């Protein structure tokens, strides 16, 4: 009797494994950030278009903000651009850009062409600050609270759904 049940049990276990695999397949390439709940990395970066103005991580404290990692070479950044624009326009949260591994001229042209929703963009030309943030592909967005803690990370394009379900509730807190 038990012998007969074994194949059924194995079948069910395998089915469960495959179901879980399918469920996480869409998010398989997303690496959970170890930064969540920690202080954001310290930095001091020039502002895109005003290279003599530097902004440090400390300067950004006081109100929550969304740090949106973007680049002119990144097609998905263009795809999410209307969503980021709408969030910035709504005024629900400060939206600051991190222009990642980009040429200043290309980046500025990109903003002229598609609109500049950012309060300002920080220029991380070498990508070194990106490494500190654990950026591995643009676009990525980090929600940082008023005290400078990273509270949420979105990997890939920002969506209205994520704004509604993940960003806004954390901003309102």
């Amino acid at each position, binding site marked *: 009797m038990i012998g007969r049940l074994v194949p059924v049990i194995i079948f069910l276990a395998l089915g469960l494994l495959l179901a879980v695999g399918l469920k996480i397949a869409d998010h398989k*390439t997303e*690496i*959970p*950030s*170890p*930064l969540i709940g920690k202080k954001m990395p310290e930095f001091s970066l020039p502002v895109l278009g005003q290279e003599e103005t530097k902004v440090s991580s400390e300067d950004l404290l006081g109100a929550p903000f969304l740090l949106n990692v973007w680049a002119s070479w990144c097609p998905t950044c263009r795809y999410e651009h209307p969503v980021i624009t709408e969030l910035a326009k709504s005024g629900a949260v400060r939206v600051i850009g991190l222009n990642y*591994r980009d040429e200043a001229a290309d980046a500025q042209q990109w903003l002229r062409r598609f609109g500049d929703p950012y309060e300002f963009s920080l220029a991380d030309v*070498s*990508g*070194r600050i990106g*490494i*500190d*943030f*654990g*950026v*591995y*592909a643009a676009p990525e967005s980090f929600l940082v609270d008023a005290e400078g803690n990273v509270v949420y990370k979105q990997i890939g394009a920002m969506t209205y759904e994520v704004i509604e379900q993940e960003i806004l509730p954390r901003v309102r807190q």
Partner: protein
Amino acid sequence: MIRKWINLAVMLAALSVSAAFAQEPLVFDTPEQEARYQQLTVELRCLVCQNQNLADSDAPLARDLREEIYGMMMAGQDNEQIKTFLVDRYGDFVLYRPEIKGNTLALWLLPGVLLAIGAIALFFTVRSRNRKLAAQRQEG
């Protein structure tokens, strides 16, 4: 026929050697240091193309990280410090051989557990078959 297979094997070996390192020329103080660098970059995962290690990958981020690792080595940091630097930023996923701890335990133990289940199943299958055969022999 055999010759054909040998040719194929040689060809594949040559291909794998040429693809082994997608790296920029770096200057090391000692051969040991260079070996350490190679060993380390092979053990670390490229975050962009996730089935490649840092040594093999041509992705810009992999290049940046190799540069970072090279810089840290030259500054006298040991392997643990370099790995910690990466894990702090990218998580355990960056390590091909993650530390054994709570959330990686299943990863380390499951293969052994599965092997043990297989061995036990094999043992019982063989034993019951032997018994059946012995019974048949007695009947016959």
